[in-house]
């Protein structure tokens, strides 16, 4: 036997109250009267001498009838039938992203969504099942399919919003797999619709019901943050912040920047509706530290009003160029700021002490262990099926790759080149019809850029893209830069730290001040820390290695908290916010409560009348 509302057992506490009522002895006042004859006659008159008497007006009677009526009504378990269809399985997806923390609903969008979801739990038929998914940084199954309302309520109560961007697609895919073979199923999405792009999810058949929460979009948010060397003054750092106003009205706020907690500058901002205001702060920096940018205005979403970034002091890059002589390449490398270039004919050791090695058509005696930029150098550990092609035609290049940023291959001709099949560790960033010409990727801990041709056998060095490519390559291959970019993650993303030594455990200090221990496998070469749902500054200590990293929202799609009436899935599917209410809203609890009140009133009434 199961109880739909086990909490109602709390009403049993009223039983002792009733007993106490009956324990109270009716204290009769003893009174001497001349004769009880009249009283006996009176009682005989008032007591029924016949089995029936004329119905007299008595409030107690009305109260008892009302009480009985309420009890009977409650036992019939009445409900409001509405338009919702009966479903055997309901998958509830609760959007737990940062935008759900907006307070335009009271107390917040997430609480509102949770309340709505709880109502759907209440309306669950005894045979129906429900699944609770929380779509935060990751999709969590808070409750697998069950009919137990108590468990479902517990699961919903345990949900909490994160500071991370919305990742609805995994949740929808999970829901899709759950309802795939169910004839009668519904997917209820409780969200504000502030989601980036759902184009990769295309399913017209998904029985999705979108419950919209949220009312407005009065939000100023920091959508981008970066710290770089100031190009105008090498002693300073430039901090780029982008503040966007997602409201349709002009909004004002103060933008504060602080370094390691001490305030550097406050800048008042007034941003028209729908506009973005890029801001650049310049600050001198004496040591490595954290820059924090904070918006001090009052808006609906607090999660995007603060962002932090770790800024490390620039260090010079030690580069070893192994070549038989290539002035153009050497010149291009020297032109890059902070590069300490050494040139050699051959490499006899692993190249320790250099940040990366450039191999220019040389097969070294000893292969380097660090990052490598290799021109026309074949290492069979890297690539297979190496073949030579004459005058390859460049058909495509990946302009989105960091190596090819601002570097195009228009009007570049190549005399001859080696090609290789793209291995699993690398992506092809420059393509000839036959095969890739440039490959880039991470092989283990080694970052490798493989260029199949000698720049001198092309007109590339004469194009502006060549020095840009070399500068990009220095950036990309410099291990310090790679580390820098790792120090800023999106809230909810895992933080990875490569280990140079073996450690047994690590400790992470969270933004709220608490610490978390992580056990590390002795053979692991990196630490992965996934509990980054809250934004802020994290400190990780692993052995002698101490690292500070920041988790930030920095997501304009998330900061744009305007509730969407329509969600667009893929190319063709659209889901409109539903107005469907939960079904079978039961009333018997209300009725029982009224009945109880009537009963108490009746008791009071009865005793008031006898004295």
């Amino acid at each position: 036997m199961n109880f739909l509302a086990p909490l109602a057992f709390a009403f049993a506490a009223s039983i002792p109250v009733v007993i106490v009522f009956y324990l109270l002895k009716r204290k009769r006042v003893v009174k001497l009267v001349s004769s009880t004859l009249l009283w006996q006659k009176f009682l005989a008159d008032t007591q029924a001498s016949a089995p029936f008497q004329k119905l007299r007006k008595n409030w107690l009677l009305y109260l008892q009838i009302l009480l009985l009526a309420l009890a009977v009504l409650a036992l019939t378990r009445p409900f409001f039938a509405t338009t919702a269809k009966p479903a055997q399985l309901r998958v509830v997806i609760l959007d737990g992203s940062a935008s759900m923390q907006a307070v335009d609903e009271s107390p917040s969008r997430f609480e509102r969504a949770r309340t709505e979801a709880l109502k759907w739990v209440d309306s669950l038929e005894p045979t129906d099942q429900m699944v609770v998914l929380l779509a935060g940084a990751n999709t969590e199954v808070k409750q697998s399919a069950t009919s137990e309302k108590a468990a479902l309520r517990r699961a919903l109560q345990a949900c909490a919003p994160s500071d991370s961007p919305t990742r609805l697609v995994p949740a929808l895919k999970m829901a899709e797999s759950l309802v795939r073979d169910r004839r009668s199923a519904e997917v209820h999405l409780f969200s504000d619709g502030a989601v980036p792009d759902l184009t990769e999810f295309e399913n017209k058949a998904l029985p999705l019901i979108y419950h919209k929460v949220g009312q407005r979009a009065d939000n100023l948010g920091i959508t981008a943050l970066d710290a770089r060397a100031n190009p105008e003054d090498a002693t300073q750092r430039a901090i780029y912040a982008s503040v966007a106003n997602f409201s349709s009205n002009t909004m004002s706020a103060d933008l504060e920047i602080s370094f390691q907690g001490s305030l550097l500058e406050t800048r008042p901002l007034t941003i028209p509706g729908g506009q973005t205001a890029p801001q650049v702060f310049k600050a001198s920096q004496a040591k490595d530290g954290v820059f924090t940018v904070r918006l001090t205005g009052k808006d609906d979403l607090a999660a995007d009003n603060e962002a932090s970034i770790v800024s490390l002091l620039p260090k010079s890059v030690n580069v070893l160029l192994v070549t038989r002589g290539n002035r153009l390449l050497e010149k291009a490398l020297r032109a890059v700021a902070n590069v300490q270039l050494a040139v050699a004919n051959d490499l006899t050791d692993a190249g320790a002490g250099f940040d990366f090695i450039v191999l220019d058509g040389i097969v070294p005696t000893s292969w380097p262990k660090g990052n490598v930029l290799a021109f026309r150098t074949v290492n069979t550990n890297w690539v297979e099926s190496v073949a030579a092609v004459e005058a390859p035609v460049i058909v495509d290049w990946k302009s989105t790759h960091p190596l090819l940023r601002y570097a195009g291959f228009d009007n570049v001709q190549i005399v001859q080149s080696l090609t290789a099949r793209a291995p699993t560790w690398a992506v092809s960033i420059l393509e000839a019809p036959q095969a890739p010409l440039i490959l880039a990727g991470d092989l283990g801990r080694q970052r490798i850029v493989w260029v199949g041709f000698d720049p001198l056998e092309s007109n590339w060095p004469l194009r502006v893209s060549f020095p840009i490519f070399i500068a990009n390559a220095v950036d990309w291959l410099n291990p310090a830069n790679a580390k820098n970019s790792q120090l800023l993650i999106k809230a909810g993303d895992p933080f990875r730290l490569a280990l140079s030594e073996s450690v047994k455990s690590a400790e992470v200090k969270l933004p709220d001040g608490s610490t978390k221990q992580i056990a590390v496998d002795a053979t692991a070469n990196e630490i992965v820390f996934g509990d980054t749902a809250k934004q802020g500054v994290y400190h990780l200590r692993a052995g002698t290695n101490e690292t500070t990293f920041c988790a930030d929202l920095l997501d304009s799609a998330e900061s744009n908290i305007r509730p969407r009436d329509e969600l667009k899935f893929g190319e063709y599917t659209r889901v409109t916010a539903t107005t469907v209410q939960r079904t079978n809203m039961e009333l018997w609890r209300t009725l029982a409560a009224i009945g109880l009140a009537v009963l108490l009133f009746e008791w009071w009434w009865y005793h008031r009348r006898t004295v």
Partner: protein
Amino acid sequence: MSLLTPELLRRLEQFQLLAARRAKSSAKGERRSRARGQSVEFADHRSYVPGDDFRYLDWNLFGRLDKLFLKLYEEERELPVRIFLDASESMTFGEPRKFDFARQVAAAIGYVALCGFDRVSVVPFPNTEHGTQSGQAGALTSEELAARGALRSVRGKKSSMQFFQNLNALTAAGGADFNEALRRGALEARHTGLAIVLSDFLDPAGYESGLTALVGRGFQVNVVQILAPEELAPTTFGDLRLVDSESGGLQEVTFGRYRMKAYQQTVQNFIQRLREFTTKRGINFFMAPSNMDLQDLLLKQLRKSEVWG
């Protein structure tokens, strides 16, 4: 305590008890009777019989008819007035006490009777002599016993002060058997006359046989029912355990203002039944709450009902 004010006494002196029937008493009084005797009221003639007093010969008739006739006059006799006074425990209740009110009525009626040269006897019950059921009656003081004895037969206006004093000396206690007291009173009386019953009629055994016995004996009966205001409209509410003052019996009642009407209806039914019973038997019935204005009862109601005039 004086039972009646001098002012009231003066007014009562004007009244005379009205008897519907000729007096049957053997003692002389001021009432017309069927007996022939000496008075100024001519009644009849009869033929002279030797030995008759010549003083009563009608000489005028002898002159006309030449026959001797004797003039007969009506004998005036007294009217015996018996006052049955309920002196049971239940009469001690009420504010003012029902017993006090009853004594006042008894005094007034007695005074009117004494003024009219009628014989008054007050019969309080329960009575010790008859060894009534309640033991309390046996505890009467000698003073009260003397008073009771003196009240058995009073005559003459000059006895009225003593009559009042004796009435004052009476106390009410114990339980009474109403019917038995009336039956005995009816049998004891050698001559019937006027009977006044002063009681609350709250006897569980009823009142029917007692009143019937009085009427059957030939008394002209007047009944005054005296009830306390508290009995007509109780002022105590709530959960009550009522103790009967005479029997000691218990009665549990839950009483509230909302039941007041029903209670009063019960009391009115009780009174009405008594009224119907008495009316059917030619008995004058008066209902008097103990807080009633005595003058209203004596000077208006009794007069209107021709108890006296």
